[in-house]
C-alpha cells in the first residue's frame, strides 16, 4: 500500500498563502481600503481549497484497509542534531482526518458568516488575513507528523488567538485579554516543550536517530520507563490545560470573548480549544499505558466541567455564559479521554464543534441585531423579532443540554456511560450533575433572551434578523447540531458506532462492556436530570424573571470565585513589583555594589594620594630631600 502522497501540504498551505496575500494587501492599502468583496472572495479560496483536499484525503483513506489507514508526506529535514532528527512532514490518519473534516467545514462556514458580521468594519482585510492564518495554523497542528511539527501549529494558533482577541486594539482591555491568553498559553507550552524533551530522551536510544514522528514514537513507546512516561503524560497535559482552558489555566478563555463573535465561535469554541483533547488522543498509546496520568486528566476534566458550569449559571453576558459552557464541555471531553474512552471524547469534540459554533454564531446574530448589546438581562422577547435565530438557538441549547436526539446527547452520554462502565462512578455522578447544570444555564439563556417581555424597549425596537450571508451558515450548523449525533449511534440504538469504528486504528482503546440494563438506566437518569434542569430554568426565567442582585454563594459564583483576583494578587502583581524592585533597588544597590565599591575605592585612594601631589614646589623639594637622605643612608649602609 502506498502511503506517501504529495498533496497533504496543500491543506495548510492554501489558507496560509491566503493569509499572506490578504495581509500584504491590507498592509499596503489600509489608508484607503480595497473593496470588501475582493477580500471576501480571496479569503474564501483557502478554506474551500483545504476542504476539497480534505475530502480527497478522506476518500483515499476509506479505500485503504482499516488497520493501515494513513497517509504521509515528508517535505524536508527540518533539523537534525545528534540523535534528534525532525522531519517537516504531514501525517493524516483517521483521527487527524476527522479533525480536518470539521475544522475545514466549520471554518469555511464561519468565514462566510464573518463576511456579513464584519461588513463595514475598519480592518476588514486584516480580520480575514488573521482568520486564514488561524485556519492554516490549526491545520498544521492537526496534520503535523510529530510533536515538534505539531508545536508549530500549537503556538501559531495561540498567536492568532492573541491577534484576534485583541482585534479591537484601541481598547486597552481587549489587548490585555489578548496578552493574558498568550501568556497563559505559554505556561502550558512550557509543559508541552518539556514533555516533548522528556519523551525524546526517554526514547532516543530506541529511536536510534530515526525521525521523531508519531509512527516511530508509537513503535518505540514500550521502551519508555515508568517515571519518564508518567512525566511525559503529565507535562503534555499541562500543555493541554493551557490550550484547552482547563484548571488551573482556564482563566484566559472567558476574557478571550473580547474578540469579534465569529472568532469566539471558531477559535474559542469549535477548533483551537479542542487541540488539547486532540493531543491527548494522539498520545493515547502513552496515556493508556499510564493509567495514573489518565486519572489525573479525567479528574481535572470533570472538576473543570463542574466549576465552569456553576460559574456559567450566574453570568449576565451572553458570550461569557457560552465561554464558561465551552470550558465545561471541554472538561467533559477530557473526562472522556481521561477514562480512556478516546473515541467518545473525540466524538464530543466533533458534535460540540457544531452546536457550540451554532450557539456562538446565534449569539453573534443577537448581538449584531441589538447593536452590540451583550447583557442578557437587557434582552427578552426577541422570539418575535428574530424567529430564525430563536429556532436555531433552541436547537443549539437542546444539543448542548444533551437532550435526545440532538447531537450533544449521544456524545455526552457516551462519555458518561464509558466512565461508569470503566468503574469511575464518581466521575459519572459529577458528570450527570453537570448535565443538569448545563441544561439549566443554557435554557436560562434561551428564556431570558427570547421569551418573556422585552426588558430594554429601545434596543428591542431596533432588533432585526441578520442578512442571509449570516443566517445560511446558522441553518447549516443547526442541521449539523441536530443530526451529527447519528454518526456514532451506539449499538444500544441498533447503530454501528461509525465514528468510533473509523477512529479505532488511531486510538489505543479497550472497550468495556456493561449490561444493556445499566446503559439504559444511566441514560434515562441523565435525561431526567436534563429535563429537571430545563424545567427549573423555565420556572425561574420564562415568566417575569427578577434581576435582583445576587448574594452569598451566587455572588461568589458570579464573580468567578475570585480566581482571577487570586492570580492577579499572588502572581501578576508580585511579578511586576519584583521587576520594579530589581531596576530601582537590587540592580543599582546590590548587584552593582562590588563595581561601584571598586570605583569608590579608587576615588578614595585618589583623594589620599592627592594630598602628596599638592603641586607646590616646596613640598616636592621636601620629598626630594627626604628621598636623597634615605638614598644616601641606604648607600652608606651597603658600602
Amino acid at each position, binding site marked *: 500500500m502506498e502511503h506517501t502522497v504529495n498533496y497533504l501540504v496543500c491543506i495548510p498551505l492554501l489558507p496560509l498563502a491566503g493569509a499572506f496575500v490578504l*495581509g500584504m494587501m*491590507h*498592509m*499596503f492599502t*489600509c489608508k484607503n481600503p480595497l473593496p470588501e468583496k475582493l477580500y471576501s472572495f480571496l479569503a474564501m479560496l483557502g478554506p474551500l481549497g483545504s476542504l476539497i483536499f480534505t475530502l480527497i484525503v478522506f476518500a483515499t483513506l476509506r479505500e485503504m484497509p482499516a488497520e493501515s489507514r494513513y497517509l504521509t508526506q515528508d517535505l*524536508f*529535514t*527540518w*533539523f*537534525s*542534531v*545528534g540523535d*534528534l532528527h525532525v522531519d*517537516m512532514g504531514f501525517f493524516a490518519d483517521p483521527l487527524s482526518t476527522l479533525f480536518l473534516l470539521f475544522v475545514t467545514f466549520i471554518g469555511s462556514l464561519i468565514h462566510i458568516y464573518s463576511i456579513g458580521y464584519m461588513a463595514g468594519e475598519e480592518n476588514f482585510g486584516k480580520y480575514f488575513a488573521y482568520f486564514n492564518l488561524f485556519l492554516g495554523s490549526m491545520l498544521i497542528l492537526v496534520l503535523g507528523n510529530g510533536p*515538534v511539527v505539531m*508545536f*508549530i501549529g*500549537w*503556538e*501559531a494558533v495561540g*498567536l492568532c488567538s*492573541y491577534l484576534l482577541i*485583541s482585534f479591537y*486594539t*484601541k481598547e*486597552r482591555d481587549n*489587548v*490585555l485579554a*489578548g*496578552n493574558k491568553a*498568550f*501568556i497563559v498559553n*505559554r*505556561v502550558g*507550552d*512550557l509543559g508541552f*516543550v*518539556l514533555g*516533548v*524533551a*522528556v519523551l*525524546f*530522551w526517554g526514547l532516543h536510544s530506541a529511536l536510534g536517530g530515526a525521525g521523531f514522528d508519531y509512527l516511530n514514537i508509537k513503535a518505540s513507546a514500550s521502551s519508555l520507563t515508568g517515571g519518564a512516561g508518567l*512525566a511525559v503524560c503529565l507535562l503534555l497535559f499541562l500543555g493541554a490545560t493551557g490550550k484547552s482552558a482547563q484548571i488551573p489555566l482556564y482563566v484566559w478563555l472567558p476574557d478571550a470573548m473580547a474578540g469579534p463573535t465569529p472568532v469566539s465561535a471558531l477559535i474559542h469554541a469549535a477548533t483551537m480549544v479542542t487541540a488539547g483533547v486532540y493531543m491527548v488522543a494522539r498520545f493515547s498509546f502513552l496515556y493508556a499505558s499510564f493509567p495514573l496520568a489518565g486519572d489525573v486528566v479525567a479528574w481535572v476534566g470533570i472538576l473543570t466541567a463542574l466549576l465552569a458550569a456553576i460559574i456559567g449559571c450566574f453570568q449576565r453576558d451572553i458570550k461569557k455564559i457560552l465561554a464558561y459552557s465551552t470550558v465545561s464541555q471541554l472538561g467533559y471531553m477530557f473526562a472522556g479521554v481521561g477514562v480512556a474512552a478516546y473515541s467518545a471524547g473525540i466524538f464530543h469534540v466533533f458534535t460540540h464543534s457544531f452546536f457550540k459554533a451554532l450557539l456562538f454564531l446565534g449569539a453573534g446574530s443577537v448581538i449584531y441585531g441589538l447593536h452590540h448589546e451583550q447583557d442578557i438581562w437587557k434582552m427578552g422577547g426577541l422570539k418575535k423579532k428574530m424567529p430564525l435565530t430563536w429556532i436555531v438557538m433552541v436547537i443549539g441549547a437542546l444539543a448542548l443540554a444533551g437532550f435526545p436526539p440532538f447531537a450533544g446527547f449521544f456524545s455526552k452520554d457516551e462519555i458518561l456511560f464509558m466512565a461508569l462502565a470503566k468503574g469511575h462512578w464518581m466521575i459519572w455522578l459529577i458528570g450527570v450533575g453537570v448535565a443538569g447544570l448545563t441544561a439549566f444555564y443554557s435554557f436560562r439563556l434561551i428564556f431570558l433572551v427570547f421569551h418573556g417581555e422585552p426588558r430594554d424597549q429601545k434596543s428591542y425596537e431596533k432588533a432585526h434578523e441578520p442578512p442571509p450571508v449570516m443566517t445560511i451558515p446558522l441553518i447549516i450548523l443547526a442541521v449539523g447540531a441536530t443530526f451529527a449525533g447519528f454518526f456514532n449511534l451506539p449499538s444500544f440504538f441498533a447503530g454501528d458506532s461509525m465514528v468510533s469504528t473509523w477512529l479505532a486504528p488511531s486510538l489505543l482503546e479497550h472497550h468495556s462492556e456493561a449490561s444493556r440494563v445499566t446503559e439504559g438506566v444511566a441514560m434515562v437518569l441523565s435525561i431526567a436530570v436534563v429535563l429537571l434542569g430545563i424545567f427549573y430554568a423555565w420556572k425561574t426565567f420564562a415568566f417575569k424573571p427578577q434581576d435582583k442582585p445576587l448574594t452569598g454563594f451566587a455572588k461568589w459564583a458570579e464573580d468567578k470565585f475570585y480566581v482571577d483576583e487570586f492570580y492577579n494578587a499572588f502572581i501578576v502583581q508580585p*511579578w*511586576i513589583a*519584583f*521587576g*520594579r*524592585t*530589581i*531596576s*530601582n533597588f537590587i*540592580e543599582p544597590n546590590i*548587584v*552593582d555594589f562590588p*563595581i561601584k565599591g571598586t570605583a569608590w575605592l579608587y576615588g578614595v585612594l585618589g583623594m589620599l594620594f592627592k594630598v602628596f601631589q599638592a603641586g607646590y614646589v616646596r613640598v616636592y623639594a621636601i620629598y626630594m630631600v627626604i628621598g636623597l637622605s634615605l638614598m644616601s643612608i641606604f648607600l652608606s649602609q651597603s658600602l
Partner: protein
Amino acid sequence: MFESALTVMIFLPIVAGALILLCPAKGAARIIGFFVSLIVLMIGVQLFIDFDGQAGMQFVYSTPWISSLGISFGLGVDGISLLVLLTSAVLFPLVFCVLKEQSRNFYANLLLCQGAMIGAICATDLVVFYIFWELMLVPIFFTIGLYGGPGRLPATLKITIYTIAGSLLMLVGIIYVASCYHQQFGVWTFNMARLSALSLSGGFAGWAFLMFMIAFAIKIPIFPFHTWLPDAYTEAPPATSFVLSAIMAKIGVYGMIRFVLPFFAPEFISWATFFLFLGIIGMIYCGIAAIGQKDIKRMLAFSSASHMGVIAIGVCAMNVQSLTGSLFQIAAHATSTGVLFLFVGLMEERLKTRNIDALGGLAYRAPIFATFFAVAMLASVGLPGTSGFIGEFLIILGTVKYSMFLGLLTGFTLIVGVCYMLWMFQRVFYEKESETTTRFTDLTAGEAFSFLPVMILIFVMGIFPQLFISKIEPAVQQQIAQLYAPAQQQVVTNEISVTDK
C-alpha cells in the same frame, strides 16, 4: 597576504575605515562604508556556501609572526565560528542603510569594529585573538563616548574598564596556558589546535579557568557581571547597541566554546552546573527587570541579557543538542533582538523619545513598521517558524538531558520573554494614539527594503534551519566528544600529530 578571503574580510574594513577619515565629503563616508560592508557580506556568503561541514578548520591562513614564541598570524573558520562570522558579515550593511548619523568618524569606527570582530572570530592563534579582542573595544569606546546619549560618559567608562579588567585576566590565562604547553612539550606555541591538547585542571589551572570564564562572562554578559550592559546599551547610538548585542556579545560565547571547553575540560565539567545556574538566574532576573523599564531601549537591553543567559545555558549543558542550539541562537538572536535595537533607533530618530508611556497606537500610523517590529519580536520570544524557536528548543531539550530540574527552569524563558514583550508592544503599538505618535511616519521604501532581507532571514532560519545546522553540527559533535574524552588520550593523539608536522 590578500589571497585569503579571511584577511580581506578583516583588513578591508579596517583600511577602509582609516581612509574614510581622510575622505573630504561627509556623505561619502556612509556610502563607502556601505559598499565595503557589502563586499564583506558577499565574501561571507560565498564562504558560507563553500564551507564543508565535515572538513574541520577551513580557509586556513597562517604566516609566522614572532617565531621565537611560536606566535603566528593564523586564521581559519570551522563549524564553531561559522555562524558567528556569518552574523558579523551579513548584518553589517544594515547599519549603514537605515540610520542617519552623518559623521565620518562614526563610520570609520564602525568599520574598524567589524574588522576587529571578524579578526577575533577567525583567529586561530591566541595572541592574534587577544589583539583583536582588545581592538574591538576601541570603536565601542569612541562611538558611545562621542555619539551616545546624555549619560554616555559614565556608561563608556563602565563598559571600557569593566571589559578591560576582564581581558587582562584573560591575558594572564593565555600566558599560563602557553607556558603549561611549553612545560609539557618543550615548545612555545599559541596555536589553538595544539593548545587544545592540554586538559588542565587543579592548582593554578582552576584560577586560570576562572580568569578566562570571567573575561567571557563579562563580555556575554552572564549574571552578575551584566551591570555595565543596561547603561551601555541604552546610552550607545543605535548602531553601536546593535553591534554590541547582535555580534560582540556572541564573541564572548564563542570564546567560551573555543577556549575554555578544550583547555580546561575537567574544570569546565565540574563548574558547569554553577555557570548554568548563573545563566538561569540571569535569564529570569533580567527578564523580570525588563518588565519594569520605561525606556524601550533599556527594556531591550535587559531582554538581550536575558537571552544571552539562555545561550550560556546551552553551552554549559554540554551536549550536542544544547551546544548546537546555542550556536544557532547566536545568529538567531542577532536577527531578532539586534534588529529590534535598530527599529528603536529609527523610532527615536523620528520621535525623539523612547519613553514607552509617551507612545501608543503606532500600528495605525505605520502598519509596515509595526509588522516588521512584530516579526522581530515574535522571533525574539521564540515562536516556531521563526529563527528564535530552533535554538531555544534545542537548548531546552539539551538541558533537560543534563538535568530535568534545570531544564524546567530553562523552560521559563518561554514565559519570561512574552511577559515584557507583549506588554511593551501593547503600550507602543496598540491602544489609543498618543500625541507624540502623530509625528511618526511609516518606513520609507528604502528602509523597508533594507530590513526586508532580515525579515526573510528570520523565516528562512525558522523553516530551513538545517541549511545552517548541517554545517555546524559535525564540529559540535567533535567538540563535545573531545570534552568528555579522557585527557590522557588526547595528549597522546596530539603528540603524534605534532611529530607528524
